[in-house]
């Protein structure tokens, strides 16, 4: 028969798809059967015909296998193609839908963007600050070794301790010490002050980063009498020498308080750019022949020590060895290791990374937690929005269902849409995060570790992609679940009552409730931080910072006796005080907030003989110190110019010290002895009691302070601070100050002057920063929760419009209507609020280290938060209900 007509005898089968095997078999069987029929028609018997056909086919089995396999491959490919096509279609459909409802889309995208932005910003901080290793090779072997008190954070070590460690250690491959030295160098016309790091021999070996140019220090550089060399930091090399390679070999003439005489350093190297410990340059520490007396070395914790762990050792082993070395040292030199000061002290070791980021660890994770919470609220919010939209579309979805789209297909479509939403939202969030990271770096407190390394890395971007996926799935989960549970059939005949079943309403309300409780939780946290910050701000300072300025003056090494030191500063402050426009001026090495430097033992009248004398922060001050600082003299008198060498030996104590030393007696008239090492400690008469002041920081409890006239008893440091009370504008005051200093000694670098508000602000900067951030998060959270509540109530109210109309028609008062309509919503809000507060109460202990002057379970804060949330949510609920009551009854009755 002709080719053309044969197929007309066959009827098309609608979409018959058997398994691959069945298809192949059917096709081949047809072929075989037709052939058999032909042979039979030609006259053969059935059996013969069959045999003939079998012969023709030859290797039937393997051929069939091959066909089946290729058929299966094809079926699979077709199916994948089908899914890919579906997804493409879904994607296009989603975009179209989102564009058609701009208000919903924009709201959802912005909400997600906010949450994701906060999260990505904080992830970058966590990653860059806490997780990223230090920029040194094998930095996980770098250990910080220092004095520990009761097993706490290691601090600094004394020189003999470092030497003992270097000599005895087996767990550290290399160990080096460094400490800060001030150098005054002559650059251009003016003397300039540089911060140098005096380092020991293995410094570069410990850190593992060789100098960029030139060489590292070698053994000869550390020998007594070696020609002095220096290595520039990269920063200073660029700034002062313009990055010129010819800087090598140049000379730097320096003098300074820690140098006995003028020293000429030859530059032999430049450090790599990443290697910045805050020093302008490095010089070798000459250990032998140091200018310090043994006693000074043993009682001053001056050196920071770092070591590189040897292969095969771990943190615990290093710590144990350090402990043992400390013990040996204590037994060898008992005279330096006894007394209450040394009670819990030992030597410990900590990973350098941990030590560097320690101060910020708790607060950073806290901030991250807050950001994560904000994201959760955002997702829940969007989920609620989305659910509402899907429910409104029930009718449309039902139609689609009737036309053949299965529930699975619709669910997939819904999910695709929410994924598209969340990808867009995440993109917005990542953009926001770039701005967020920049803001963090600018606003962050100066002492925030590794602040300038914070950046959005690839890892964080990958994390954001995962976030996009997760939020998309979560946001779409609720509507998909609803679709699945209730299907789309059977709603074709519903009116607008479609979708307002009790179940979905409860789900939406539940979502709002979750948002409210999380927002309350965040708000409690920020409330505590804000109050803590305020407490700090309002701390009784004990002195008067208005019109008060402070200036640090560093003396060159030519002032190598205590007398010269005291004389210079006494003269300087006297001349300054006599300057026109200055009310009072004085000086002290360590004014409030600049750290306490001297902690001698105080022996006092009436001290029980078997008691160890207490250690108290003692300040050697110039005359008129209290007047200059604005510290009220409570009883007796302050320190005057008449208190000097040769006159009666006096002291002044603050009220905290007075209460401690003589709890039931008047302090004025009593006597104390200030005992420090081998210095003479005659009896001093207490002539006055002044108000207490913060010592090193605002947060610690006020410690007792003792004041003695510098002209009678002083320690020699490289620098001291001049304090000036004046209402001159800062520029004028600086000029006066610099001319006074220049007149006294032109080789001293001109000092700068800061109003006391600057160190104050520096102390407040950190708590303000945290309060601001978490405050911002919680405001966003409350806003989102309020918006969520508002839309939920608006939605509910719409359904009750008829009911409201009826009630109005029957004469019910507006307030009663409002009450009944919003009752459910407000009950829900209260439930959420309660949950949030309980959660906060249970976990607020986590914040304890960040709070000042306030308990984690502060009642006022909790009550205030409760009030704020209740008020906000009530307003959000009442408003739409109120609007509904304004609808004329006739319209309301007609609505449905």
């Amino acid at each position, binding site marked *: 028969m002709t*080719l053309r007509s044969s197929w007309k005898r066959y*009827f098309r089968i609608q979409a018959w798809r058997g398994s691959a095997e069945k298809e192949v078999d059917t096709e081949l069987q047809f072929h075989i059967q037709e052939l058999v029929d032909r042979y039979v028609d030609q006259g053969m018997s059935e059996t013969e015909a069959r045999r003939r056909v079998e012969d023709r086919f030859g290797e039937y089995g393997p051929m069939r296998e091959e066909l089946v396999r290729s058929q299966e491959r094809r079926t699979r490919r077709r199916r994948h193609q089908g899914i890919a096509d579906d997804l493409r279609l879904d994607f296009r459909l989603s975009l179209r839908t989102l564009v058609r409802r701009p208000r919903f889309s924009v709201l959802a995208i912005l909400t997600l963007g906010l949450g994701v932005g906060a999260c990505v910003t904080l992830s970058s901080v966590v990653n860059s600050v806490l997780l990223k290793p230090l920029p040194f090779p094998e930095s996980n072997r770098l250990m910080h070794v220092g004095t520990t008190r009761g097993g706490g954070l290691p601090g600094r070590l004394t020189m003999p301790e470092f030497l003992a460690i270097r000599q005895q250690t087996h767990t550290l491959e290399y160990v080096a010490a460094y400490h800060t030295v001030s150098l005054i160098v002559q650059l251009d016309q003016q003397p300039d002050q540089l911060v140098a790091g005096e380092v020991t021999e293995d410094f570069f070996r410990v850190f593992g980063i060789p100098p960029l140019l030139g060489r590292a220090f070698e053994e000869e550089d550390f020998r007594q009498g070696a020609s002095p060399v220096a290595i520039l930091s990269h920063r200073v090399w660029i700034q002062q020498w313009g990055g010129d390679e010819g800087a090598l070999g140049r000379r730097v003439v320096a003098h300074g308080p820690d140098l006995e005489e003028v020293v000429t350093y030859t530059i032999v190297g430049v450090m790599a750019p990443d290697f910045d410990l805050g020093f302008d340059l490095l010089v070798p520490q000459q250990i032998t022949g140091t200018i310090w007396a043994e006693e000074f070395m043993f009682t001053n914790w001056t050196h920071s020590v770092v070591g590189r762990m040897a292969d095969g050792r771990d943190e615990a082993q290093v710590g144990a060895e350090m402990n043992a070395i400390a013990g040996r040292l204590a037994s060898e030199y008992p005279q330096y290791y006894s007394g209450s000061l040394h009670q819990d002290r030992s030597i410990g070791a900590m990973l350098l990374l941990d030590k560097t980021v320690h101060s910020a660890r708790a607060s950073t994770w806290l901030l991250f937690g807050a950001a994560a919470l904000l994201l959760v609220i955002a997702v829940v919010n969007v989920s609620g929005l989305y659910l509402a939209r899907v429910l409104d579309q029930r009718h449309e979805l039902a139609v689609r269902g009737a036309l053949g789209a299965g529930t699975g297909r619709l669910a997939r479509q819904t999910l695709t849409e929410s994924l598209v939403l969340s990808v867009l939202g995440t993109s917005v969030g990542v953009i926001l995060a770039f701005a967020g990271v920049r803001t963090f770096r600018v606003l962050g407190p100066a002492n925030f570790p590794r602040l300038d390394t914070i950046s959005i890395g690839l890892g964080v971007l990958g994390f954001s992609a995962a976030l996009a996926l997760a939020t998309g799935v979560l946001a779409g989960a609720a509507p998909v679940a609803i679709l699945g549970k209730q299907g789309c059939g059977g709603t074709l005949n519903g009116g607008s009552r479609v979708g307002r079943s009790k179940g979905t309403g409860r789900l939406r309300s539940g979502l709002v409730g979750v948002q409210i409780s999380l927002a309350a939780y965040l708000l409690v946290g920020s409330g505590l931080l804000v109050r803590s910050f305020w407490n700090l701000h309002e701390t009784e300072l004990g002195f008067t910072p208005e019109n008060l300025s402070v200036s640090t003056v560093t003396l060159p090494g030519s002032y190598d006796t205590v007398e010269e030191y005291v004389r210079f500063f006494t003269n300087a402050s006297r001349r300054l005080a006599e300057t026109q426009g200055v009310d009072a001026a004085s000086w002290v090495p360590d004014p409030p907030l600049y750290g306490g430097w001297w902690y001698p033992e105080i022996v006092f009248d009436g001290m029980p003989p078997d008691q160890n004398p207490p250690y108290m922060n003692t300040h050697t001050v110039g005359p008129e110190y209290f007047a200059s600082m604005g510290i009220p003299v409570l009883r007796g008198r302050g320190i005057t110019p008449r208190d000097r060498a040769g006159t009666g030996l006096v002291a002044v104590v603050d009220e905290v010290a007075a209460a401690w030393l003589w709890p039931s007696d008047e302090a004025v008239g009593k006597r104390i002895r200030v005992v420090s090492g081998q210095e003479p400690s005659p009896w001093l008469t207490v002539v006055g009691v002044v108000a207490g002041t913060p010592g090193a920081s605002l947060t610690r409890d006020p410690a007792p302070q003792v004041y003695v006239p510098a002209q009678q008893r002083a320690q020699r440091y490289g620098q001291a601070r001049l304090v000036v009370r004046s209402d001159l504008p800062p520029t004028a005051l600086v000029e006066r100050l610099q001319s006074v200093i220049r007149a006294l000694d032109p080789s001293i670098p001109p000092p700068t002057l800061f109003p006391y508000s600057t160190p104050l602000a520096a102390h407040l900067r950190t708590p303000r920063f945290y309060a601001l951030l978490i405050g911002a998060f919680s405001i966003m959270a409350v806003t989102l929760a309020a918006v969520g509540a508002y839309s939920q109530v608006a939605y509910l109210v719409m359904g009750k419009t008829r009911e409201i109309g009826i009630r109005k028609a029957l004469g019910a008062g507006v307030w009663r209507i409002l009450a009944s309509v919003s009752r459910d919503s407000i009950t829900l809000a209260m439930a959420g609020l309660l949950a949030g507060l309980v959660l906060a109460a249970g976990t607020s202990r986590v914040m304890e280290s960040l709070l000042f002057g306030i308990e984690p379970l502060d009642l006022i804060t909790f009550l205030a938060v409760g009030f704020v949330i209740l008020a906000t949510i009530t307003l959000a609920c009442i408003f739409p209900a109120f609007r509904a009551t304004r609808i004329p009854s006739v319209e309301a009755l007609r609505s449905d």
Partner: protein
Amino acid sequence: MSSSVASNLYGDLDLLVLHMVERGGPVHGLDVMDAIETRSGGEISVEDGALYRCLHRLEGRGLLSAEWRMSDKRRRAKFYAITSAGKKELARTRRKWEKHIKAVGMVLAPSGEMKK
């Protein structure tokens, strides 16, 4: 573009099958086999297994599409038709084949000197 001397048996069959399906489509495998045998005057007979491998291969490449039909004798059969991609491929292969034929002819022709 020169054609290789060793002719590609695969290629030949593809060409023939495509052509026959285009001419008479939709067709089932047996019809194609018969048609090729008839039109070649019995010179070319296609092995049954090879035919079905070819048909499936062409379907896999998207050059043929298939649908199932039911005969009045309640036998299901798979019918193949050519796709637009198949048409393009057919035209391309036919052109190549005709060029090949011409080239061979030119080599074998008695007239025409061999250029030195």
